[in-house]
């Protein structure tokens, strides 16, 4: 057996199983969703195998039949989801960037412990943690009791079931996602470069803008992307902390599949989210390539 052939067999042996797994259980369901999004909903759930583009028409504006009508509310919900996800990214960045800086300057023992603390929430169920936030944010909750106890407010403030609660909850959930890539790039930052910048006449702000920020940009972009994507499609946080008032695209998809039993329309909505994410990833990839070339 030739060496090249042996290498090829080794490669197939190592990568064969995961490849088959991904094809069947990752691309398979995606393909089913794509096909379903172009079919007609069955009367009692499931699908009828009749081609229809009206699922997309209902979202994007050309559906105008008795049962399948365009409604701008879907786009509005999608845009709100984009907004909430973007604000979640901004809030996570605002929390994680200084934290990562601070932790990266700790002495080694403390540093490892702090990183462990950041990932600690993963050890408790997401649902339990979100209900803890309900207890904190509700009108008779810890936060309102505290504010009223201090005399800062007379009546309880509506925190729960607002955009604020959803952004807060998602930020809380996705902080480790943002923190770890950020920490990776901040930890590698050469302190001597900061001194060099200052030595060459830059103020702290100029040093941040021209040296620190560009040097940590890969971490910022990486953390933002892997925070934004799950935040955009998230439906657990908005359903627990947003209630019926803050509907995100993830909740809408969930409703179509589980309550309305309109699988084709749910699939079409899911495809919309997917394409938005795909566009984002392609843009990031292009940017990274351009960055690497310059």
């Amino acid at each position, binding site marked *: 057996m030739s060496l090249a052939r042996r290498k090829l067999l080794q490669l197939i042996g190592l990568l064969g199983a995961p490849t088959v797994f991904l094809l069947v259980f990752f691309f398979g369901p995606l393909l089913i969703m794509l096909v379903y999004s172009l079919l007609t909903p069955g009367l009692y759930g499931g699908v009828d195998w009749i081609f229809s583009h009206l699922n997309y028409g209902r979202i994007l504006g050309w559906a105008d039949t008795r049962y399948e009508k365009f409604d701008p509310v879907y786009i509005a919900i999608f845009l709100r989801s984009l907004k909430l996800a973007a604000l979640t990214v901004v809030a996570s960045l605002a929390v994680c960037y200084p934290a990562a800086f601070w932790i990266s300057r700790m002495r080694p023992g403390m540093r490892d412990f702090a990183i462990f603390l950041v990932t600690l929430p993963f050890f408790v169920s997401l649902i339990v943690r979100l209900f803890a936030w309900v207890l904190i944010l509700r009108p008779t909750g810890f936060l309102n009791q505290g504010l009223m106890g201090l005399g800062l407010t007379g009546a309880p403030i509506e925190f729960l079931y607002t955009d604020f609660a959803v952004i807060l909850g998602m930020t809380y959930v996705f902080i480790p996602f943002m923190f770890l890539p950020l920490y990776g790039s901040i930890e590698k930052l050469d302190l001597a470069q900061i*001194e060099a910048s*200052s030595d*060459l006449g830059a103020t702290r702000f100029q040093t941040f803008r021209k040296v620190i920020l560009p040097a940590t940009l890969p971490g910022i972009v990486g953390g933002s992307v892997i925070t934004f994507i799950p935040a955009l499609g998230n439906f657990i946080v908005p359903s627990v902390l947003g209630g019926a008032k803050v509907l995100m695209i993830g909740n809408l998809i969930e409703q179509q599949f589980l309550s309305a039993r309109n699988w084709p329309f749910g699939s079409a909505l899911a495809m919309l989210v997917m394409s938005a994410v795909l566009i984002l990833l392609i843009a990031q990839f292009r940017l990274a390539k351009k960055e690497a070339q310059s």
Partner: protein
Amino acid sequence: MTPFDTYPAGVFPAGLQDRTPMSSPLEILDARKSFRTPEGGTMTALDGISLKLASAEFVTLLGPSGCGKTTLLRTISGFETLDAGEVLIDGTAVTQMPAHRRPVNTVFQRYALFGHMSVARNVGYALEIAGRDKREIRARVGEMLELVGLAGMEKRAIQQLSGGQQQRVALARALAAKPKLLLLDEPLSALDKNLRQKMQQELKALQRELGIGFIFVTHDQEEALTMSDRIAVLAHGQIQQIGAPTELYQTPANLFTADFLGESNLLPVKVAAGRAGLCDGQSFATARPAGEATLLLRPEALSVTPPEDHALSFTGTIRETYYTGTDHQIALETPAHGTIHALLRSGSALPGLGAEMTLHAPAQGLHLIDEVAA
């Protein structure tokens, strides 16, 4: 512009002659700085250091690690603040001035180049920060790269450069904003030996060409001797001695300097009635006052044939010899003085290991230090 500038050198009004007409590029007055150690104690890094550059000199701060030389450099650049004392650059007190406003630039030990910027942006960084015109920056960057021998490399990425080239970029970057003083923090330590020697010569030439003061930090005594106009030998946070390389090498003021700069034979002597006596009875004439002292005898001062002003002789057995190409290094085991190190020009015939040999020292090569080894 000081009032003295209007007078030609040497004709200042009476009473002002002792004042320098132009301000010194760098003056440090009684600098003190201590750090708290992690164990809770204090470590004195600078213990009352005063230093003044007479003109655009090449001054080397030389000393073992932990002697305070890097701390001293960092108080000049502004990265450390003094507990007490003053730093004046070009006659202006900058003791409280933050680093980014000081008219000095630094070449860092590991260069600290900005990895996400091209060579041109690195070199032009100080000018970009100062908000200079783009065309002016481009011209200055080109000029600087030519100066350090990297003409045409503007667009290269830092990662594409060799260590020596990065060194040159760091140098160009530090010089681009025309600093009044250039600080160099062991910049050559990461280079291999040949490149290091080449850079030493280039740095010295560059300093002469630019006419600004260079403060160079190193622990390499050879480097210090090669490049400097003056060397300040530091130990324990104090300047042990400052002077021209030849002065420090030939007539060190104390045992530390004698030992730190070059190879040395240090022999205890007793001075009485104008003569210094060794423990084996030999003696030579000296102008020193009576008391105990130490004789410094450089290995290269010793010779096989007695010199004209022959003063001392040492007889012993050859313990070790090393051939370096230009010289033979010899360790001579003597009964009275222990091991005496000698450096003989190659070409002279040498007896083999274990053979007996007599070495001679001229009166001119003898230097007494008013200090006795503990």
